[in-house]
């Protein structure tokens, strides 16, 4: 009876640029294998050289949205610390999306690089 709900605008505390970036970082992290929320957060913090200083909590709405879009899937498991944790893994759709986003990002970076290139005399 209900199709996909129309997404409401993301909460205003999170700049839009970061949203796409965060999604991509999550997908990329999961490319290495299933991981739970804390591992993902640590990995992102490490990999972005602490440049993206996001609150770790904002990871969870992102995970929820990605799961909603069926780019990742989740299951409960036991962590290396012997604690129950919710693990996420990449779905085939997620893999595809990651590839597309990586290409798009590369194009964007190239385009911006060209615009910002100092004018040669």
């Amino acid at each position: 009876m209900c199709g996909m709900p129309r997404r409401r605008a993301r909460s205003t505390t999170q700049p839009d640029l970061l949203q796409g970036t965060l999604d991509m970082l999550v997908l990329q992290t999961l490319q290495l294998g299933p991981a739970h929320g804390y591992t993902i957060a640590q990995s992102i913090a490490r990999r972005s050289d602490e440049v993206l200083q996001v609150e770790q909590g904002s990871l969870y709405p992102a995970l929820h949205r990605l799961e909603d879009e069926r780019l990742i899937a989740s299951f409960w498991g036991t962590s290396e610390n012997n604690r129950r944790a919710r693990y996420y893994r990449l779905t085939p759709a997620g893999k595809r999306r990651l590839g597309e986003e990586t290409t798009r990002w590369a194009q964007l970076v190239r385009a911006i690089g060209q615009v910002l290139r100092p004018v040669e005399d």
Partner: protein
Amino acid sequence: MSWRRYVRRAAWDAERAAEIDAHLAHHVDDLVARGLPPDEARRVALRTFGRVDAVREEIYEMNSLPILETLWRDLRFAVRLMRKAPGFTTATVLTLAVGIGANTAIFSVVDALLLRPLPYPQPDRLAVVSTTFRSPRGEDTRTSQDGRTWELVRDHATVLEAAAYSDWVTGVNAVAHDRATYVQQQRVGAGFFRVLGVAPLVGREFRPEEDMPDGPPVAVLSYAFWAHVFDADPSVVGRSLLLRGEAYTVVGVMPKGFLSTAPADVWTPLRASTRGEGGGTNYGIAVRLKPGVTWAQANAEMAAIGHTRAAEYRNASNVTITFGLEPMQEGLSSDVRTPLLLLWGAVGLVLLIVCANVAGLMLARAGRRTREVATRMALGSGRAAVVRQLLVESAVLALAGAAVGVGLGYAALRGLLWLAADYGIWQPIAIDARVLAVTLGVALATSVLFGLAPALTASRLDVTAALTQTTTRGATGRAAHWPRRLLVAGEVAIGVLLVVSSALLVRTFVNLRSLNPGIDPRGVVTATFSMQDRRYATSAAMNQFFDASLERIRRLPGVEAAGVVLGLPYTRLLNLGFKYVGQADDGQYKITNLCYVTPGYFAALKQPIVRGRAITAADRAGTLPVAVVSEEFVRMYFKDRDPLGSRIALEGGEREIVGVAGNTEQRFSGVGQFAPLKPTAVIYIPARQTSDQFLALVHTWFEPSFAVRSATPAAETVADLRRAVRETDPLLPIAAVNDLNELQNAALAPQRFLMTLITTLGAIAAFLAIVGIHGLVAGAVVERTRELGIRLALGATVAQAVRAVALPGVGLAFAGVAVGSGLAVWTGRVLRAFLWGVSATDPQTVVTVGAGLLLVAAAASIAPALRVLRLDPAQTLRHE
């Protein structure tokens, strides 16, 4: 992830909370491992994470369904608005309730009789055999068959299971446990219940050898009869039951709730043959397609069987005959199908008017809400949101209307079933879940019908213009009036159509009611009883009973005259063939109607003997066989010849016509007579001059009645009459007691049914159309107050102002009447079969109805326009 998360938001939230706890625990573990004290580690972990509540709330919000929430908001807003405008709400809900209620009631009948499958297993495999006669004069399809056809089907059908039955249910006297009751008996052939697919609850159904002429007397009981008379005793099989004085052995009981093709308490073998009743078309043939057989195969087989019959007919006449199958439901509902479909169409039209009216009200209100809508759009509400909000308001109104409407429908259905009591309805009719579901669908569909136009008009609003207007009046432009005007004109057109139809049906009914009865019904009571009784199998025994009981009755206080007749006025009579004797004999039997009467009958009814003599006590077995004929009989068969002294040949011998009686009105008898009641050609013969075989045959279908004229009040006469009959024969129950007006009413029941319902619907339609016009003009006066004030201030006369406001209403009424009259003439042929004594396109009726509605519409336009008189230009201009 699935839609379930929307319902299970709390569970989801709990899971997220657990996940976040795990996250924090892992972080604390890490920090502790790096040497931080646990308290400090927890603080750091929480700081790094951010606000746990905010995260949970964000996810919770993501799981909400925006459509449902806005819908809920819209709903609450709609209900608030409805409460704020109680007048508008009441008017709308009541209007809708009338439309939806009428539809619910009629639909429940249509559904039960025409749409719902018959209450038998695999009802789509059931059919009745039909024969189609084609002659140069026309074509006629019938589902009643004669014995010859039945034998052909019985002997040659291979892909069908077939069973003959009689739809002619007769009331008979049943005696069990020394208690006499009057029950409805249906005669069915062996295998009838198997064809229907219902096995007896107890015992078995009839065997082929029981279904032969002179077979053993056996009976199958209905559940209700079994429970009532035999106390649901399972050992009933083999017990005896007296039916019309003859002992029948019970062989089975049908399950509870079983419905045959006619309402019956007891079934006996039909014993179909080609003799007796089998010589005429008195049987129905029910068939079930055998497993795997297609309808095409079945029809082909019927056609092949019909070839034999066709050859026989071609030899005799110019008629070709073909056999076919008709799905059983259509076969059973053929009598009521057309009237029901007519009614269904009429209530549909009324619902359309209701929608138009409510749409008009909504449009008018939309005009007043311009500012509200404009404000909302200016604040960022999309057009879609505005349309949705207005549609939700319509849906809420429609559902409220449906709720009240179901109540009205329930009451209407009870009235309807009361009216239809004489229609012989064979299915239970009720407002059930299925009907309610359809009502709900109708309500929602109407909400779109009446809500869409106003919603779309509102959403096309010019926001700037609406908000910068200093006044709410005159904010809507000229173009905004057109939807409403079209609606009103349409209402008037449909109103005219329905009122013309009602007028034609009323004229038909009046015509039929005012026919010359030919008798004096005042002071006459009749009592009908069954003579299907072995004790009265001979003419002598029957006449002995007549004489003995009439003697007692005539001695009762106040009784002026009494007699017995087979076939009272206003009822259907026995069809019988006669031919001329002597020179006039052309060898052709002409079908006419026959009654037997005792002396005193004509006197009891004051039916005049216009020539010759009545039947007297001197006409007895052994004396000259005589007959009295009706004037209509003379007109039809003797033209300018003198009938007195002429001889006619009936089945069983020649008779001399000794008298001519005045005409009586009799019910449609199927022989070249299509009016529900008309003066009928009848041959009256003395009850004493009847043969045993003749009586055995006619008493299968017809029941004689006492007719008593008395000066005492009817109730006393009835009590006395019952006592006199009981004293003569304690085992003979009286089936029905009537006065002649009741019989006339019963004969006209179908006409009254259709007339009452269509007239009610016509009245509702006309009323709503007039209300629509009134509302349109009244609204215009309010909207144009300012403009009219300016006009008056500038020197316009009051008459000019009134004309300006009222003219559109009159104009629309005129257009509506013109279109409606055209529609009425064009659709008149649909009604033709239900009219009598008036043409379906009767110009007088159409013109009278059109002019009448036009007058009322003009009054409805001018009345509100007169409010202009109360306008004070100065005040109007200063206002606002």
